[in-house]
């Protein structure tokens, strides 16, 4: 039974084989889906869509296909090759989208967002859904949890961003497996009575998958940073 080298570990950190001889789950790596698609570690898909529950058309269409009604972001493939630019944005809201090692960074056209989404008023939402597959986490008696957390940011105009939905408890939360709800929890952005986000507003979101058994826990995280410019 080893709890660290040369002394104690911080609470919650478990090294080696724990009591009862159960080995903690192996390392976890996040992918877009269970084919380990795009094979760049710890990045998952993002599907942004204007609230479909309100029965009105708002948001913008995909600039490539001219179809759909999207919120500010779509990064379904989560590919480095899908960066904007050089690729055209998935929605006109996007000035840029950069897929890096374990993150996606989006720059949003505040004025376009305002004209095509915020101006509908009444608290209509823009949703961010996350879809991914947690590879690894191998061990005896492993259970899975996903978590979407807003870790920081500033939103003006009375805008609020909340995490809603119910996280799945499976290893596979890819869009291709679970549908548009992905990992279950999603972010809901609602403009307030003072309008929506303005240039300089920002939001940071972290999506984490955790494998747990009697020996301990192992997790991996994906960061989604949004900057209105």
């Amino acid at each position, binding site marked *: 039974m080893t709890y660290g080298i040369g002394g104690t570990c911080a609470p919650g950190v478990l090294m080696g084989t724990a009591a009862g001889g159960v080995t903690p789950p192996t390392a976890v790596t996040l992918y877009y889906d269970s084919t380990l698609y795009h094979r760049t570690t710890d990045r998952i898909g993002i599907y942004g869509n204007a609230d479909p529950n309100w029965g009105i058309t708002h948001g913008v269409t995909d600039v490539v296909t001219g179809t759909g009604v999207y919120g500010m972001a779509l990064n379904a493939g989560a590919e480095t090759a899908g960066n904007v630019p050089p690729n055209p944005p998935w929605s006109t809201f996007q000035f840029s989208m950069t897929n890096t090692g374990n993150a996606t960074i989006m720059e949003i056209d505040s004025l376009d967002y305002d004209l095509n989404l*915020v*101006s509908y*008023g*009444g608290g209509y939402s823009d949703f961010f859904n996350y879809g991914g597959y947690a590879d690894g986490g191998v061990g005896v008696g492993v259970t899975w949890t996903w978590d979407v957390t807003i870790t920081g940011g500033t939103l*003006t105009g*009375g805008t*609020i*961003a909340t995490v809603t939905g119910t996280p799945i408890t499976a290893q596979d939360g890819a869009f291709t497996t679970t549908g548009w709800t992905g990992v279950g929890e999603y972010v809901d952005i*609602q403009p307030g009575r*003072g309008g929506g986000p303005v240039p300089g507003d920002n939001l940071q979101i972290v999506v984490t998958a955790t494998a747990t058994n009697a020996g301990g826990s192992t997790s991996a995280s994906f960061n989604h940073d949004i900057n209105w410019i």
Partner: protein
Amino acid sequence: MGAAVESGMNWSELYDKRSTWTVDIPVGTVGTHSIVHYNIENYDSWTPYWKSYHQARKEAPHLRNYTVLLREDQKLSVMQDSFTEFEEHQWLWGHATGDVLITGLGLGFVNEWLIKAPGITSVTIIEKHQDVIDLVWDHCAKDERFTLIHDDADTWDIPDGSNWDCIWIDHEISGHIHKEELKDKYGSHTSNLGYYGTLRDLENYYEINEESGMLELRDPNILLPWM
């Protein structure tokens, strides 16, 4: 009070020390508008939006009662006497002086400061909805310096020659174009025009001195640190 919040969020007693004005408006419904009182004991009666709102803004319904103005055709609450509202009015706290024009009565939230603020000579409030007036005006803070006009701030004919030392746009802004229209309409009647919800890059930020009830500068200027 004191029960755990159903959402599971870990609340801190620190939030109880954040500044806000509270209002004393009784529960009621007139037409399409309602005044409700929310606290953790009636959580099940909250609107879905307010269940999200209190989470996102880390409000403290287990510690205090909130007065909330609702409109039946609107998902958002119109206004609440929350810590967040206090933050979203920071511009006004620093600029209210002399003759003040307010667009939107809401809960009469800003009256709580304007009635005691030094140097306020008059307060004119424009409110579009008679329902809101009927629910709030008799119960909100005011004195002989306060005047209410029942009209739509978007279309109100501003009397010729009118000028104010401060104008605060506090009714619903539907987006950038609307905001520009309001700037054009009211900007020529003051050198001090501010908008609800402006949080960043202000000259100063304020909190309420617990003993005097007056505003004083806040240092450091931390904006919504929980967001």
